[in-house]
C-alpha cells in the first residue's frame, strides 16, 4: 500500500470527472424533476400506509435519490474501461502503485459523487418539495455513506465480471435499475406484488429505503437504522470480496467494440 499513490489517482479522477460534469448534473437534476412529477402520487400511497400528513416527498426524494444513485454502479466500472480505451491502464500498472492503491483511488471519487448526489437531493428536498426529516440527521448521513459504498462495491463486482464496455453497460444499467426497482425505490414495498416484496430484502437498496423511511417518517435515530446499516455493510463486504476474487488487473478490457 502506498497512500500517496491512492491520493494522486483520486485527485486525478476528480479532475477527469469534472472535465465533463454532465453525469454529476444528470444524477441530480433528473431525480428532482421526477420528484416533482411523482410526489403527489406517493402522497396517496403514504396516506394509505398511515402517514396522513405526508406530502409525498418523504418517499419521492429518497426513492429517486436511491434510484439514480444506482447509476453509480456503471460509473465505477466506466473509470476502469476508460483507462483501457485511453491506453493508460498499463501505464498505471507499471507504476509502483499497487492494485489496492489504484482501486481505492478510482472507486472513492465514485463513492463521493454518490454521497454528494444523495446529500444534495435531501438538502434540496426541503426548500423545493417541503421534505421534513423527523429523525436524526446523523443517521441519514450514515445511511447515505453506507449506501454509496455498497453500490460502488457492487459496481466493482460488475466491472470484474465484464470484459467489454457493452457488458458493463448492460449489467450495470439493468443491475442498477433492477436493484432500485426491487429494493422499493421506484414503488413503495407496500404497493409491490407479494413475490417482489418477498425478494426485496435480498437487495441492498431495500435496506437503504427502509432506513430512510425510519429517519424521515418515524423519528428514527442511529440505533433505529443500525440493522439496515449493518446489512448494507454486509452487502458491501460481500461485493468487495467477490470483486477482489474475480478482478484480474492484467486482463484486457474492451472499451468499445
Amino acid at each position: 500500500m502506498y497512500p500517496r499513490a491512492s491520493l494522486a489517482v483520486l485527485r486525478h479522477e476528480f479532475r477527469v470527472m469534472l472535465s465533463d460534469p454532465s453525469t454529476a448534473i444528470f444524477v441530480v437534476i433528473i431525480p428532482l424533476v421526477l420528484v416533482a412529477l411523482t410526489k403527489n402520487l406517493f402522497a396517496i400511497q403514504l396516506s394509505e400506509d398511515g402517514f396522513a400528513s405526508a406530502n409525498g416527498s418523504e418517499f419521492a426524494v429518497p426513492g429517486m435519490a436511491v434510484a439514480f444513485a444506482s447509476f453509480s454502479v456503471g460509473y465505477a466500472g466506466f473509470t476502469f474501461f476508460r483507462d483501457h480505451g485511453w491506453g493508460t491502464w498499463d501505464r498505471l500498472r507499471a507504476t509502483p502503485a499497487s492494485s489496492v492503491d489504484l482501486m481505492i483511488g478510482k472507486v472513492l471519487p465514485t463513492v463521493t459523487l454518490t454521497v454528494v448526489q444523495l446529500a444534495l437531493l435531501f438538502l434540496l428536498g426541503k426548500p423545493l418539495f417541503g421534505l421534513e426529516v423527523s429523525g436524526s440527521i446523523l443517521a441519514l448521513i450514515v445511511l447515505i455513506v453506507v449506501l454509496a459504498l455498497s453500490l460502488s462495491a457492487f459496481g466493482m463486482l460488475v466491472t470484474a465480471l465484464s470484459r467489454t464496455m457493452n457488458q458493463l453497460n448492460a449489467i450495470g444499467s439493468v443491475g442498477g435499475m433492477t436493484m432500485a426497482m426491487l429494493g422499493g425505490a421506484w414503488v413503495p414495498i407496500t404497493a409491490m406484488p407479494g413475490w417482489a416484496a418477498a425478494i426485496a430484502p435480498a437487495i441492498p437498496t431495500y435496506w437503504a429505503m427502509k432506513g430512510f423511511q425510519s429517519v424521515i417518517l418515524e423519528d428514527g435515530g442511529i440505533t433505529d437504522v443500525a440493522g439496515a446499516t449493518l446489512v448494507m455493510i454486509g452487502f458491501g463486504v460481500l461485493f468487495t470480496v467477490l470483486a477482489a476474487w474475480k478482478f484480474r488487473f492484467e486482463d484486457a478490457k474492451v472499451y468499445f467494440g
Partner: protein
Amino acid sequence: MMKTVGSARQDGGVLYIEGLRKSYGDVLALGGVDLDVRAGEIVALLGPNGAGKTTLVSIVAGLRRADSGIVRVDGLNALSRSSEVRRRIGLAPQDTGLYPVVTVRQNFMLFGELAGMSRAALRPRIDEVAEALDLTELLDRQAGKLSGGQKRRVHTALALLHSPRLLLLDEATTGADVETRTRLLDVVRRLAADGSAVLYSTHYLAEVETLGSDVVLLDRGQVIVRGGVDELISAHATPVVELTFEGAVPDVGLNGEASVDGQVLRLVTADPAATLVDVLPRVRADALQSVEIVRPSLEAVYLALAGRRYDEADREDKREDTNVSAS
C-alpha cells in the same frame, strides 16, 4: 566486443534476464531469453512484429507473468519485489497512453506522483523534460487536442520524469514524424549518458543503425545474436544478390552460396557486380522480374541468421498475429 547468444552478465547489470519463457496457449512468445543491460547502455531490441519484443518488455515492467525464468532489476527480483522494481522503471508502452481530457501538465503530475516524486520536485522536472522534448508550449493544453507526434512525445516523456534506472521503450517512434523521432532518440541518448539503462524495442532496422546502440536481434521468441551494429554487419552480413523471376527459378548453374525461395534466387557474394555479370547472361531477360542487391546492413544480418528477409518476416508474423488473435 560481440556477445554470443545466452551470455547475460549478472555483474553490475541494471537489467538481468535469464531463461525467460512465455507462451500464449500453444503459441511460444519467448523461448528462453537471456539478456542484460548495464547502466549507461542502450540496447535495441530488434525483431519483426510478433518476435516477442512487447512480451519481453511487458514482463520486465511487471505487466505480464513469465512462465519461467529470472528477471532482476538492480539486483531485485522483479516478481517478488515488483513494487520496488517498478519504482526503478520508466515504461512507454507500444500504444500511446494519455488522459486526453486533462492537460499535458496534469498527465505529468499524475504519473510523476505515482512514480514517487513529490509535487515540489515534479514542477521543475516537468519543465526540464518538456523543454527537452519541445513540449513547453503544450504543457497547459488538453492532451487530447495534440497532434499525433506531440502525443507520442508526451507519451515517452511520461516515462522519463523520474529519471528511471531502467527505461523501457516499446516501439517508441511508431507513427512518429521525423522531428519527433529525432528528438526522442536524442533524449534517449542523453538519459543513457546520465547513467540510465535503456531497453529500446523497435522493428525499424534503420532506426537502430542511426541509434548506434548494441543490438539484440529477436526472432520467434529467441535471441539470435547480440552485438554492436558494425560488428554484427562485419561478422554476419555479406551482400546478397536477389533475382526475382516471373515463374519458376531457372537453373543458372551456380552452387554453394545460391538458394531458392519461391520465385527468388538468392546469391550470397562478396562482389555483387561480378556475380551479376556472371549470372545475368545465363537467364532469359523476359523471365526476370527484378534484380536487387541487399547491401551489408542489419537487414543482411537478419537474412543471414534468420534465413528470411526482415520485411517478409514482419509481414508473415503480422499474419500469424492476426490468426492468433482471431482464433
